């Protein structure tokens, strides 16, 4: 099976602060993988290094076998990376539909009518259709997070990077989200999902990695990882609920 993602020896520093050190792992195409770890572990930064939003200080990133280390995030999106932001970044003066249209037009590279259909489809999957004509700046927080998902889907990703999209949901909403992500996985999209809501995560992913202080401390099937001494130690140290 070919690899959708290959992360090799990634390091990232902000000035003197070392956020990631020697992070290495691969994700086979079509796999759904979860990332856990305490706050400040570097999970979001890792996602940004993969999407190209942040430049790594060292190491290489391969997407579908191609070295993209020096490729910008806009081109990585066009190559099939879709991502959400933990702190939503909506286009506040555009409507929800237009937010998705932006991704469908440029990320998925679709022409007018096809782009509109793609945007509608993304809104439907992310359950955002009711807000289609609402300016994104007027959305409540949970809807903003859903818009992140809708926009990422509109770019027609083959690799979907999700950053804490389940927080704050009711049980029913969470179940519905799990179902949605599972369907995306079953449709062949590779998924990398950072999530504190572990039950939601383990319902979808077949593999878990744990990041602590910028290094991978565990990698394997979810049960084993959650019970490994290193991970338990991190948990008892606080951070994950």
């Amino acid at each position: 099976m070919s690899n959708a993602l290959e992360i090799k020896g990634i390091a990232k520093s902000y000035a003197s602060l070392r956020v990631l050190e020697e992070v290495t792992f691969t994700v086979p195409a079509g796999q759904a993988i979860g990332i856990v770890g305490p706050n400040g572990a570097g999970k979001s930064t890792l996602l940004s290094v993969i999407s190209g939003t942040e430049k790594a200080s060292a190491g290489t990133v391969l997407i579908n076998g191609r070295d993209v280390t020096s490729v910008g995030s806009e081109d990585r999106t066009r190559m099939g990376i879709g991502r959400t932001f933990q702190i939503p970044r909506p286009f506040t003066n555009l409507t929800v539909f237009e937010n998705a249209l932006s991704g469908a037009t440029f990320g998925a590279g679709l022409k007018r009518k096809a782009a509109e259909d793609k945007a509608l489809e993304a809104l439907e999957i992310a359950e955002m259709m009711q807000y289609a004509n609402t300016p994104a700046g007027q959305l409540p927080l949970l809807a903003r997070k859903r818009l992140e998902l809708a926009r990422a889907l509109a770019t027609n990703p083959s690799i979907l990077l999700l950053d804490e999209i389940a927080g704050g949901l009711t049980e029913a909403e969470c179940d519905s989200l799990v179902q949605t992500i599972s369907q995306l996985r079953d449709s062949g999209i590779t998924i990398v999902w950072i999530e504190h809501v572990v039950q939601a995560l383990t319902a979808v992913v077949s593999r878990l990695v744990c990041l602590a202080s910028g290094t991978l401390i565990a990698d394997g099937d979810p049960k084993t990882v959650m019970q490994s001494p290193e991970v338990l130690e991190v948990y008892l140290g606080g951070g994950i609920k």
Partner: protein
Amino acid sequence: MTSQLSADYKVDHFQKKATVVGLVGAAVFLFAAVAPYIFATDVTSAWIKLFYLISLATTWNLLAGYAGMVSVGQQAYIGLGAYGIFVFNDMGLDPYSSVLVASVAVGIIAFPISYVAFRLRGGYFAIGTWVIAEATRQIVIRFDSLGSGRGRSITTYTEDAIYRNLFTYWVALAIMGLAIVATFYLLRSRLGVALQSIRDNEVAAKSMGIKVSQTKRIVFVVAAMGAAAAGGIICLQGLGVASPNTIFGVNYSAFMIFMVLIGGIGTIEGPIIGAIIYFLMDYYFSQMGLWYMVVLGVLAILIMLFLPRGVWGEISHRFNFKVFPVGHQVQPLFPGIKLKKK
């Protein structure tokens, strides 16, 4: 995960309304084109000023209001556009065509400048554009052929003042029409979605696959061409450039910001309204000298305090109304489906 959504929803682009606006706009334009035959010359020559103010406000709004590039250095291109008249006029071109040719030439000059300006962000971008404008003035006044700092007049100009005014009027009108139509068209195209995405969040725009620098560069060059064309009109109307310090003056940026903020930034109508307000103030109160500037300042402060969206922005927001339809409206095709209002 495919569905039959396009059978359930329709995306409205307000195409019909856009066509109506286009036709009404064309009628207004035609009326304005024959107006000099109806009204007195001093009235129509005042309109020349209104036309270039609208062009300036419209292009600055495109730059700052739609692409998030708050420049205070558009006077670089106003000045270059004005001086460009001499360059092309000296080559044998008539002064009116020189306005258009100079505008294109300034667009070509703005292209490499954008690489310098785009290294700066936010406030630094603003100051950087101002510095670039100053540097441009410094370079231009080195040239003897351009009057070396003393200004210059157009040498081969239409003798008859009435025809001179008439031709200038038509060129100014054409450029204003072009600026508005180009902005309207741009905002209705996919570029409009890209620009507004960039303005609202550059990082997210990149993750939508938008080529941010490339898109901003297009607007930067178009706005420079608009400013240059306005500069050309100012030169035509003044029979030349009286002083490089004025034509390259930061005052122009101040007036552009004034017009756009007063009228309503980030709307097509706002800069037009703002330019009309500024034009009327200028027409009736500019003899007041220093007090005129005070009145302008007070008006700007009052509007910012009480109508932060600007005059048109407030009207448009309150009545949910636009003259120039841009954007998209999703409409369910079945009565069972309901979308949230607004």
